[in-house]
C-alpha cells in the first residue's frame, strides 16, 4: 500500500551509437502516517541494458527512422515489457546527431513509439546534467563539501557538469571526443572535425584529413587537448581550451574537488594504454589515446580522479533512471487531462497574475491550450486568505485574457496544490479544467511533461531545463 514500482525507460541516440535501458523506480511514502502523504522515489534499479548498437543512417545527414523503430520493438521484447507498462522515461538525441536533418521529427516520433509518457529531449546542458546524474557525480557531491565535476567524453563532445551538495551549479560543453579525429591503423587521418580547427591552429598543429600522422604526433595532440580542457576546468581563463568550448565561452568554474570522467572515453580511462597506431585505431579513431592522455594529465591537477558508477552508459542511465520526479501527493487533477507534454513554464512573480499572463502570451504560443503552466514559487506563509485572493485573480484573468482555453495548469513549490486546485475549481464554477500540482520546483523557460496520475494521488513530472546557462 505504501509503496509502488513504476517502469521508466531511457533511450540515447548518439552520434555513432544508440542504446536503451529499462529501470524500475520504487515509490514509497516518506511522511509520517499522521502527516500529509508525501511519496518519494526511494530506489532506482537498473532492470535491463541493451547492447550498444550503431546508429542506422540513411545518409550522412539522415537517420533511418524505420530501422530505429524496429530496434526499439526488439529491445522492448527482449526486456519483457509492453508499451503500456512504461510510465515514464526520456529519449535523448546526443552529440552531433542532434544536428542531423530529421533529428527533431525523429525525436517526437520516437517519443510517441517508445511509450505514452516517454519524453523527448535534447540539448547539451541537459545532456551534461543527465550524464552527471547517471555517472553518480550528483550523488557523490552529497557526500562531500566540495564540487564534483563530471566530464562525459563521448564521440563528439565532452559534456561537463558541476555539482555541489546535489545541485548542478554550472555546465559547459567542449569539442573533445574520441571521434573528432578518425584514422586507419596505418595513421591515415580519414576524418577531422571542423569544430577543432581553431584550437589546432592556435596550438600550432598542422593536421589535415587524408594526411598520415605518426603515433608520437597524434599523442601530442591528444595530450594537449586533455591539458587544454583540464586547464579550463581548473579555472585557467587563458587556456586555449576556450577555443574548444561549444558556445565559444567558458564560464567561471567553481573550484573542483573531484573529477569524474564518464562517456565512451571515460569507460576506457583506466584500461587504455595504446603504444602504437594500430593499438590506437581499434575503433577507427583516436579515442583510446585520448583516454590514456586524460588519465595521465589529470594527475597534474589539484582535483582527485573519482571512479564513476557508470561510464559509457551514464547519459542513458541518467535519462532512464534519474529524469523523473514525483509531485506532492495532495494535488488536484481534473480527470482526463493527463498526460501532457512540453508545457512551457511561466513564473508568477510577486503574485502579479495579470503581468505574468501578459508576458506568457508574448513569449509562448498564445493559441496553444494551455499556452503555459503557471509556476508559483515558494511563499513564506500560505493563509486561506491568500489562496482565496490568488484563486479569484487567477480565474478572472485567465478567463478574460485567454478566453479560448479552458485548461489551466498550475504548479506550486509550497505544499498547497489541493487547496489551491479546489479553490480554483469552485471559483471558476467548474468551468475550467484544472491541474494543480505541488512540491515541484521549476524555472521560467523550463519545459514540463506531466504524466498520468499514480493511484490518483500524484503524478510523475519531468522537468526539461533548457534555460540553465549562466556562461
Amino acid at each position, binding site marked *: *500500500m505504501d509503496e509502488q514500482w513504476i517502469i521508466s525507460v531511457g533511450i540515447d541516440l548518439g552520434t555513432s551509437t544508440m542504446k536503451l535501458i529499462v529501470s524500475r523506480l520504487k515509490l514509497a511514502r516518506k511522511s*509520517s502516517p*499522521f*502527516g*500529509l*502523504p508525501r511519496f518519494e522515489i526511494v530506489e532506482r534499479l537498473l532492470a535491463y541494458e541493451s547492447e550498444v548498437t550503431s546508429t542506422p543512417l540513411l545518409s550522412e545527414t539522415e537517420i533511418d527512422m524505420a530501422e530505429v523503430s524496429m530496434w526499439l520493438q526488439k529491445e522492448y521484447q527482449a526486456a519483457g515489457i509492453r508499451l503500456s507498462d512504461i510510465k515514464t522515461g526520456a529519449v535523448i538525441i546526443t552529440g552531433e546527431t542532434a544536428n542531423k536533418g530529421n533529428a527533431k521529427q525523429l525525436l517526437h516520433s520516437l517519443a510517441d513509439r517508445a511509450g505514452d509518457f516517454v519524453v523527448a529531449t535534447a540539448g547539451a546542458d541537459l545532456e551534461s546534467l543527465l550524464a552527471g546524474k547517471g555517472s553518480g557525480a550528483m550523488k557523490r557531491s552529497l557526500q562531500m*563539501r566540495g564540487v564534483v565535476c563530471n566530464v562525459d567524453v563521448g564521440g563528439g563532445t565532452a559534456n561537463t557538469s558541476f555539482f555541489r*551538495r546535489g545541485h548542478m551549479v554550472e555546465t559547459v560543453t567542449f569539442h573533445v571526443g574520441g571521434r573528432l579525429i578518425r584514422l586507419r591503423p596505418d595513421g591515415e587521418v580519414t576524418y577531422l572535425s571542423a569544430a577543432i580547427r581553431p584550437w589546432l591552429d592556435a596550438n600550432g598543429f598542422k593536421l589535415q584529413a587524408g594526411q598520415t600522422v605518426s603515433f608520437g604526433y597524434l599523442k601530442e595532440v591528444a595530450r594537449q587537448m586533455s591539458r587544454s580542457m583540464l586547464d579550463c576546468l581548473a579555472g585557467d581563463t587563458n587556456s586555449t581550451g576556450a577555443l574548444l568550448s561549444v558556445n565559444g565561452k567558458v564560464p567561471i568554474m567553481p573550484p573542483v574537488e573531484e573529477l569524474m570522467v564518464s562517456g565512451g572515453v571515460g569507460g576506457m580511462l583506466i584500461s587504455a594504454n595504446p603504444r602504437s597506431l594500430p593499438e590506437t585505431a581499434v575503433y577507427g579513431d583516436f579515442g583510446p589515446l585520448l583516454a590514456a592522455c586524460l588519465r595521465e594529465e589529470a594527475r597534474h591537477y589539484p582535483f582527485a580522479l573519482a571512479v564513476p558508477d557508470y561510464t559509457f552508459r551514464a547519459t542513458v542511465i541518467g535519462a532512464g533512471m534519474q529524469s523523473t520526479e514525483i509531485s506532492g501527493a*495532495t494535488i488536484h487533477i481534473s480527470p482526463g487531462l493527463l498526460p501532457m507534454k512540453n508545457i512551457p513554464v511561466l513564473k508568477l512573480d510577486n503574485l502579479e497574475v495579470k503581468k505574468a499572463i501578459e508576458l506568457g502570451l508574448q513569449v509562448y504560443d498564445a493559441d496553444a491550450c494551455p499556452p503555459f503552466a503557471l509556476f508559483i514559487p515558494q511563499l513564506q*506563509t*500560505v*493563509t*486561506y*486568505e491568500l*489562496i*482565496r485572493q490568488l484563486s479569484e485573480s487567477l480565474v478572472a484573468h485567465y478567463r478574460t485574457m485567454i478566453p479560448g482555453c479552458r485548461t489551466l495548469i498550475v504548479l506550486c513549490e*509550497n*505544499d*498547497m*496544490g*489541493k*487547496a489551491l486546485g*479546489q*479553490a480554483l*475549481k*469552485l471559483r471558476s464554477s467548474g468551468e475550467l479544467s484544472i491541474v494543480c500540482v*505541488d512540491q515541484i520546483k521549476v524555472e521560467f523557460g523550463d519545459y514540463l511533461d506531466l504524466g498520468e496520475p499514480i493511484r490518483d494521488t500524484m503524478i510523475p513530472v519531468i522537468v526539461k531545463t533548457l534555460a540553465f546557462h549562466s556562461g
Partner: protein
Amino acid sequence: MDSLDLEEMTTRIMQELQQRLGTTSEEKGTSQSRINDEFHQQEQLPSAVVESNESFTGPRHNRRNNIPQPRSAEMLEELQAATPARIGVWRAGTRPLTREMLLFRCDHAGAVDTVYGEVSDKLIEKFQLFQVETLYENTENYLKRPDMGRLLTDESIDRLRSGCQKRAQVQIVVSDGLSANAIEHNLSDVYPSLMDSLNAYGLKAGTPIFVKGGRVAVMDHIGEILEPDVLVMLIGERPGLVSSSSMSAYMCYRPRKGMVESARTVLSNIHQGGTPPVEGGAHIGTIVSKMLEQKTSGVKLVI
C-alpha cells in the same frame, strides 16, 4: 508579534548585562563572566515575562550563528534548516549561552501559558460556532481529570439536541483542548479550506460546534447525541518547545460511546511550521470522503 517582543526583550537584557559587566562582546567573554550572567538572568527573567503579559506563540528558531568558527558554515546552515531542534547553539564551558538559555525558557513559558489561554469570542462568532462545554469546570480540574473533558454537561446536551442539525453527513467540532492558541492561529486557515474541500466533493456539513474544555474522546459523546456519518474534530495539541500552536484533526466514521482509539484517523502537527494548515484542511476533506466511501475510519481506512 508577541514573540518579537520577547526576543527584543531578551536582546535588551543581554545588552544591559554586558554593560554592567563591562564585556564588549558576548562571544569574547570568559566562561566565568557568562556563568555570572546567568545567575543575574534567572532572577530577572520571570518578572520580565509577566510584564509582556502575552503568551508566547511560536518557536523562536534562533538561526544566529553562535559557533565561533564552524568548520563548514554551509553544512551547519543545512543541518539547522533541517530541524527546528536547538542544534548548533554553542556553549559556555559545559553550559548553554545565556541568550540561548533565555530563549529556551521563553519557549517553555510559552508552552505553559498556552494551556491557560482561551479561544476568543470573536473567532467563535466569525465561524458561527455553536458553543457548548464539557464537565471540565476549570483548567486545573481539566488537567487533573481528563475523563471530565470527554463528557458534555447536561445543559450542553439539551442545547445540542434542540439547536443542532442531527445526522449530518459531516459534523465539524472545534475544541481548545490543551492549546487555545492552536485554534486562534490555525482555524482561519483550516476551516474555510476544509469547507471548500467538502464543497468540491459535494458533501454537506452540519452545524459547526465549539466545545470548551474538550478532550479528543468528547467526539464519541457528541456522536452519540447527533449521530453524524463522519465527525471531524479540530483540537489544540499539547504544547511543546517547538510549537505551542499546533492543532490536530481527529476524524471518525460514526463515532459512538465505546469507540476504540484505533478507529480514529488523525492528521496532526497542523501549524505554519508543520503540516501546512490550508493544505491540511483540503486533505481532511479527502479523508472524510474516503471514510464515507469505505464506511470506516482509523487503521482500517485505506487512504
